[in-house]
């Protein structure tokens, strides 16, 4: 097996025993990226030079016998809306094309303290608005499993980078499914932590009450390791919660016998691809075989979640993104007066999807519409939260498909925003409720990955990891790797 193909925990063992060096691991990932990147296009910025320097530092520290962090020498990639000091952070927008922040996001600081090595910044839908990474201002990313298809979005680059072996793990952000849906599309593990579990400081805000940062990994163990590194209270984020997170590794390998799993029927209804359903039900069978008790249940307000989401998220975004005005940073289009400067900077700086959502959000908050749209949506949000609260009195975990379909073709949905929005129906309610959601590879349909989504009550990431690990130990979907074809040649 190639070094770039290994997991965090496998590499950590090799690094700890000195069988490989951080530089070797980094070089392996860089070479792999060089090979597949022309086809996948997961990265918008490479930090290769810096990565080698950092890897050397890790090796030197280890050689001196110093204590190194739990992720020391592990190559990682970061979604390009996560601020990195001195490394451009574009949000894949023309407006921030050259923006180099003067500060690190808290998650970046924590990962650096853990010793992880930044390989680069990954492609995404502009300002995280999209489900396919086609809304990147730069280029689309291709799904390593089928280069004609999208990797999902908005964190498509982060998912594809891990799936293709260009990084051992990566971070994405998830406002309505932007970690879980690409994880499913690329057959990797993706976790959206509970709202408040991971600091949002330094992560460009899309919808402040929904955004969370989380990992993409090759397996569940790695997911626990990365979550360990990034979770916990941050003084710079008043919405991060105080209680100390546990060591998530301790839940791996725990028996799931007697654990109650609910299948909300609304997530298996019309609009969900039959073959996807089939794969999911087979996976459910595996869990039943491990002693889990599976029952059908209901989350009655599910059908309203997309409407609630497509009011609240743009409303918050319309306010969050006002700061992008070309005055203090970002690309500015000059004009004789400041209003025209704002107009031109923003109109030329933002792509169509961003402008569309800013317009929706502004509309929903403006006089006369606030009560009808924004406030109403917040009330229905409460009902969605209550649905989940109710369900979790009976079940430890809810299980659903992550996405109603397998990866669609590049260009297939780009002209129909409403259809694109509906590809998030399984993931959106989870952000509205603030609960943790994990997408796990659970099979294939016509050669394309299918992910299952596991949900638990707030701050019960431990339960998700426990169930996901049990499934993973009894299947081998997580071990399957895409054959990336470059220039007609396949690179496995």
């Amino acid at each position, binding site marked *: 097996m190639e070094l770039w193909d290994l997991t965090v925990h496998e590499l950590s063992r090799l690094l700890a025993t000195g069988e490989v060096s951080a530089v070797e691991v980094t070089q392996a990932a860089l070479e792999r990226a060089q090979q597949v990147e022309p086809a996948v296009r997961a990265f918008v910025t490479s930090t290769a030079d810096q990565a080698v320097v950092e890897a050397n530092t890790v090796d030197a520290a280890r050689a001196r016998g110093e204590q190194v962090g739990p992720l020391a020498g592990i190559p990682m990639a970061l979604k390009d809306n996560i601020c990195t000091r001195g490394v451009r952070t574009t949000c894949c927008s023309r407006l921030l094309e050259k*923006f*180099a922040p*003067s500060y690190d996001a808290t998650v970046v600081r924590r990962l650096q303290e853990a010793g992880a090595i930044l390989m680069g910044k990954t492609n995404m839908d502009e300002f995280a608005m999209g489900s396919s990474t086609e809304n990147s201002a730069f280029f689309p990313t291709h799904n390593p499993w089928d280069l004609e298809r999208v990797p999902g979005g908005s964190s498509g680059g982060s998912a594809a980078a891990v799936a293709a072996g260009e990084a051992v793990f990566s971070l994405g952000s998830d406002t309505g499914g932007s970690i879980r849906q690409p994880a499913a599309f690329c057959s990797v593990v993706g976790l959206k932590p509970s*709202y*408040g579990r991971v600091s949002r400081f330094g992560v460009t805000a899309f919808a402040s*009450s929904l955004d969370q940062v989380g990992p993409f990994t090759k397996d569940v163990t790695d997911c626990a390791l990365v979550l360990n590194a990034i979770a916990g209270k941050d003084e710079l984020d*008043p*919405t991060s*919660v105080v209680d100390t997170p546990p060591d998530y590794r301790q839940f791996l390998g725990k028996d799931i016998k007697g654990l109650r799993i609910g299948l909300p029927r609304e997530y298996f209804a019309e609009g969900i691809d039959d073959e996807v359903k089939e794969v999911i039900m087979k996976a459910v069978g595996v869990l039943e075989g491990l002693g889990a008790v599976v029952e059908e249940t209901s989350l009655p307000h599910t059908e*309203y979640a*997309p*409407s609630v989401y*497509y*009011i609240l998220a743009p409303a918050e975004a*319309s306010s969050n993104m*006002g700061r992008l*005005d*070309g*005055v*203090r*940073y*970002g690309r*500015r289009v*000059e*004009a*004789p*007066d*400041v*209003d025209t*400067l704002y*107009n*031109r900077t*923003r*109109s030329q700086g*933002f792509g*169509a999807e961003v*402008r*569309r959502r800013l*317009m*929706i959000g*502004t*509309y929903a908050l*403006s006089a006369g519409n606030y009560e*009808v*749209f924004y406030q*109403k*949506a*917040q*009330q*229905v*949000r*409460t*009902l969605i*939260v209550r649905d989940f609260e109710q369900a979790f009195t009976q079940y430890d975990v809810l299980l659903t498909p992550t996405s109603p379909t397998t990866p669609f073709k590049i260009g297939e949905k780009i002209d129909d*925003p*409403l259809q694109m929005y509906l590809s998030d129906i399984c993931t959106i309610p989870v952000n*509205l*409720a*603030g609960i943790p959601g994990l997408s796990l590879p659970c099979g294939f349909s016509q050669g394309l990955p299918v992910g299952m989504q596991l949900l638990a009550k*707030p701050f019960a990431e431990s339960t998700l990891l426990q169930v996901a690990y049990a499934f993973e130990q009894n299947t081998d979907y997580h071990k399957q790797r895409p054959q990336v074809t470059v220039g007609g040649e396949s690179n496995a």
Partner: protein
Amino acid sequence: MVKITDVEVEKIARLSQLELTSEEKRMFTQQLSDILTFAQHLAQVNTDGVPPTISVLDLVNVWRDDEVKEWLSREEALAEAAVVEDGCFKVPRIMDEE
């Protein structure tokens, strides 16, 4: 059906500080109408007496002590600005008072 008018689209664009071409205006008028019509089915939901969810957290009173801490130098603060003069961000003529 929510029917967004041209006038409304212009007003929203102005509030959003976006400049739309007539083609975009036509497109947005249609798409906004579609999306908002879709969203309008929320009206069917009975929310009498249901409080809004502003945040899912039950956190209250998150604050810090009144202590000064320096962070950025002026050079860092101004480094990303397109136009700087006399240690300030420079903007062209301001048309009217807020």
